[in-house]
């Protein structure tokens, strides 16, 4: 965006094709508008972008490093590559590492057949995980009257953290620990059921891309998500409807 807040129109190249974009758009937004496929897990339309999952990495001419499309703003004459062997290699490896970190037992998961991690693994052609699984010991928090938190399935995308803070305004969720010890927590690592700040709205459950957050009473493959509310809600708030 220009310094005076005026939005410009840029022309850039994506995979050799000329496209135009508004100066306030991210590379990911422009790619999606023009139907270039870029896998994402932490990104969700309506939430802030944090570039955490690293699946949306693209090549930008003149940049030595790969850049996350979700946090990279467009610029004039930018040349973006969305698909090549190197990107496919890194995306696959990233997804495989996510699988190996926790216990994603798809066949008995509440989100089987409704899971973004599962769909992406198929889309990227992953039929086995080349690194050894860690099989960590994680707890399940079923203390909430309506919802369940299963750390075994969590991919630390932090969509729950952001939707609760940015949209619901309750900020029940946070991330504690670092690296492999990191996990999402409610309030100051108290059981979810005892979290007074939780409004029980269920936004976190509906934006969770995997089976980490689910509604109580759902069995295997029954945890359907409704994240479509988010872009409408944010758009309406912007327009103050």
């Amino acid at each position, binding site marked *: 965006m220009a310094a005076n807040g005026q939005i410009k129109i840029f022309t850039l190249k994506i995979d050799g094709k000329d496209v135009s974009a508004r100066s306030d758009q991210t590379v990911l937004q422009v790619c999606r508008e023009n139907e270039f496929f870029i896998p994402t897990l932490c990104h969700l339309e309506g939430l802030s972008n944090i570039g955490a999952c690293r699946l949306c990495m693209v090549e930008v001419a003149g940049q030595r490093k790969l850049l996350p499309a979700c946090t990279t703003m467009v610029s004039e004459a930018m040349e973006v590559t969305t698909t090549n062997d190197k990107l496919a290699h890194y995306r696959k490896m990233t997804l495989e590492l996510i699988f190996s970190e926790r216990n994603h*037992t798809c066949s008995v998961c509440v989100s089987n057949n409704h899971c973004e991690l599962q769909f992406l693994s198929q889309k990227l052609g992953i039929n086995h995980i080349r690194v050894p699984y860690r099989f960590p010991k994680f707890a399940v928090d079923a203390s909430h009257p309506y919802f369940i938190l299963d750390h075994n399935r969590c991919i630390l995308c932090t969509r729950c953290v952001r939707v609760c803070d940015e949209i619901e305004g309750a900020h029940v969720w946070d991330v504690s620990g670092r690296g492999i010890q990191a996990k999402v927590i409610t309030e100051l690592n108290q059981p979810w059921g005892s979290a007074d700040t939780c409004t029980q709205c269920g936004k976190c459950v509906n934006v969770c891309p995997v089976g980490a957050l689910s509604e109580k009473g759902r069995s295997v493959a029954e945890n359907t998500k409704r994240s479509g509310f988010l872009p409408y809600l944010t758009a309406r708030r912007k327009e103050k409807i």
Partner: protein
Amino acid sequence: MKAKIATTWLDGCSGCHMSFLDIDERLLAIADRIELVYSPLVDNKVFPDYVDVTIVEGAVASVDDLAKIKKIRKHTKYLIALGDCAINANVPSMRNPIPVQEIINRAYVENAFIHDVMPKHPALPELLARVMPIHEVVPVDVFIPGCPPSNDTIFYAVAELLDGRIPDLTNKTRFGA
């Protein structure tokens, strides 16, 4: 010459074999092209010296599984990991975060109403500390994910192999399918 085919199960539920049998009459269509030399479905108790394609269901969970899969790999040209247990250790691996002795104790002593003793017999294979996917132990040539993979998927994979092609199953199945 007929292709020598073997199938076996390690730590699984036999569901993948059920799905395999669900190929039904299409099995007859390929029957004159294959010879089933070893399988839970046939009598042969000894794994043959040479097999073209071995289809393995289940994860590697015991010392017995470990010995079996190593032997199979040695005598097999194309090794197929069939189903999620073979590929990602699936449900059998849910014991992995817990020490083996604790699990056995829980099952045979703590929760037993009668005869609460730890099982011990030379015929009982010792459990490994950690249940593993097959490819963590030996190289695997073809992966068919699914719990279980559909009969169509299995048939497609076998038919492709019989025609001398490595099957591409990306659009046909996935983990948990």
